[in-house]
């Protein structure tokens, strides 16, 4: 097994060598807020030559087309530069040339694992820009679909992570078996399994039937058993623990300063969940806990996702119990001649991968003057090099997998 190489042993120059001061619980962020440092440069031991490898863009572990230019001293990573842009299609430029509503189906293609939450973030930003209200039933439907999305995202991201560790098939197929049930629900409600195009400014496109809600209740009840099975299968697996514990540690001050969000931030022990902080939609009506990690390593990120899946089921069941009747669209909402008054708005939600935000500037015209996506996947990769330095090249795959990215959103 690889040992974590400590800075002083290998001449690693770490400008900001703050380490976590105490044990469990949220860390104190009130100290020196200086989480900034360039990734430490590691001095090679002087024997042999550095080997530069381009991992990607067609490496199976990169979840798409992404390249890491890695410099290796033996097996050890001494430099890692991510290279983006292979999937860049200038989504923002396209969106500035078409109407507000016409971008809605395009947001499905950002993070194509979680189209519902992309729809939601965009709808939320536009609703902030125009001051529109959303009917109660639509808010409940958004929460139900959003939590189903979070559940299937976390399950499949864990599946991918374990797959990259060498457990070909089983965990991923367990996750996909559940994902299949959730996608069937999406298909029945929206007409599409992945490219759902479901939300509208001021509500949702179609209402859910009571038969659909019953089916969702049944699926939600089955998810509890799945998480128990999944956790029992993986959490105490010796190989998984040996490969992930102490690997890719991210300190909380660094995580906050580098804008890391989502399960990755909470795995580092920072209590920040936008569902709690902003309480957007109707999230402040639900009782749920925010799981926090102690060490900020790959294992914690894996475990946080398992725990968040459990919390998601709780929210889901509460929402399915309380969902009221009524319309799903604001009757005052207009889909034709939609021209927000001049101004700007930034709307953000807790997407499964982190803070997904949309920043819109309206000049009073039918198209947004400025349309910006704040991609959690891209910004969470800021610290990739810091987490990988000093580890073996085989661990890079795991650390990268634990960030949980989708290239459609990284490159936009």
């Amino acid at each position, binding site marked *: 097994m690889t040992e974590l190489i400590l800075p002083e042993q290998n001449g690693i120059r770490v400008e900001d060598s703050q380490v976590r001061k105490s044990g469990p619980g949220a860390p104190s*962020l*009130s100290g020196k*807020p200086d*989480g*900034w440092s*360039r990734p430490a440069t590691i001095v090679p031991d002087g024997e042999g030559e550095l080997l530069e490898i381009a991992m990607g863009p067609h490496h199976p572990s990169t979840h798409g087309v992404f390249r890491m230019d890695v410099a290796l001293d033996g097996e050890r990573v001494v430099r890692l530069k991510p290279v*983006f*842009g292979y999937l*860049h299609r*200038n989504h*923002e*430029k396209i969106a500035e040339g078409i109407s507000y509503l016409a971008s809605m189906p395009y947001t499905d293609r950002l993070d194509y694992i979680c189209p519902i939450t992309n729809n939601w973030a965009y709808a939320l930003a536009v609703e*902030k*820009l*125009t*001051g529109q209200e959303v009917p109660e039933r639509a808010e409940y439907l958004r929460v139900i679909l959003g939590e189903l999305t979070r559940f299937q995202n976390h399950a499949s991201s864990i599946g991918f992570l374990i797959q990259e560790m060498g457990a070909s098939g089983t965990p991923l197929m367990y996750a996909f078996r559940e994902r299949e049930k959730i996608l069937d629900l999406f298909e029945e409600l929206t007409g599409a399994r992945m490219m759902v195009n479901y939300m509208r400014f001021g509500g949702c496109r179609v209402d859910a039937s009571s038969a659909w809600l019953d089916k969702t209740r049944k699926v939600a009840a089955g998810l509890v058993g799945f998480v128990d099975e999944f956790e029992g299968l993986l959490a105490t697996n010796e190989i998984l623990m040996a490969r992930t514990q102490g690997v890719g540690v991210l300190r909380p001050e*660094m995580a*906050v*300063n*580098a*804008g*890391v969000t989502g399960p990755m931030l909470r795995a580092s022990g*920072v209590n*920040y969940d936008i569902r709690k*902080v902003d309480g957007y939609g109707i999230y402040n009506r639900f009782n749920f806990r925010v799981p926090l990690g102690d060490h900020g390593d790959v294992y914690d990120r894996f475990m946080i996702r398992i725990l968040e899946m459990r919390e998601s089921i709780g929210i889901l069941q509460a929402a399915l119990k309380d969902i009221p009747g009524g319309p799903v669209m604001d009757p005052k909402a207009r889909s034709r001649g939609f021209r*927000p*008054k*001049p*101004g*700007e*708005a*930034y*709307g*953000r939600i807790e997407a499964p991968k982190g*803070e997904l*935000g949309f*920043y819109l*500037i*309206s000049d009073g015209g039918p198209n947004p*003057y*400025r349309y*910006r996506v*704040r991609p959690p996947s*891209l*910004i969470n*990769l*800021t*610290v990739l090099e810091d987490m990988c330095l000093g580890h073996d090249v085989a661990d890079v795959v795991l650390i990268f997998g634990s960030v949980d990215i989708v290239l459609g959103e990284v*490159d*936009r």
Partner: protein
Amino acid sequence: MKTVEEIKSAIEAAVPDAVVEFVLNPSPSGQHSLRVAPEDAREVARFLRDDADLRLDFLSNVTGVDWPGYLEAVYHLYSVEKKHGPVVIRMRTANRSDQVELPSLTPIWRSAEFQEREVFDLYGIVFTSHPDMRRLLMWDEFKDHPMRKDYVDPDDFEYEPTAHDEVLKRAQAHKAAMTGQAGSEAGA
């Protein structure tokens, strides 16, 4: 949390001679912003991050905007510790052509690292003292800045295999220009 006006006066008290201007946002979102002079930006940013009342330790979003006559960088700040936000600060360049430098805030908030590279790539704002000012999404040899409003697609833009309408016309024009060029070279 303090209102934007209170934050403005707090900045002016803490950073003497800082030029800060209140920018009204007329939309129902009510997210007003503060325009900061580029030469004061680094100090203002440090104050916003370290001040005990504000503690804006989390820079969420960095964006460029192309306005007629100048480029603008917009920063959305939140506080993880105090759980408030957003505070929006913006900076303007002098023009859109040769004076496009703004100070990088990456030394204050690391999360600006990739986002400022993206703004440089797509808008052409050059962030001074950024540790790694390269293009992020486009390839290094690319010349223009595609998110600017006056950007013109090159006419040899990869056209579809089954081109039609506008794309077909452009492809044909490009092909004609290329063969014309080749012909004249052969003639000479």
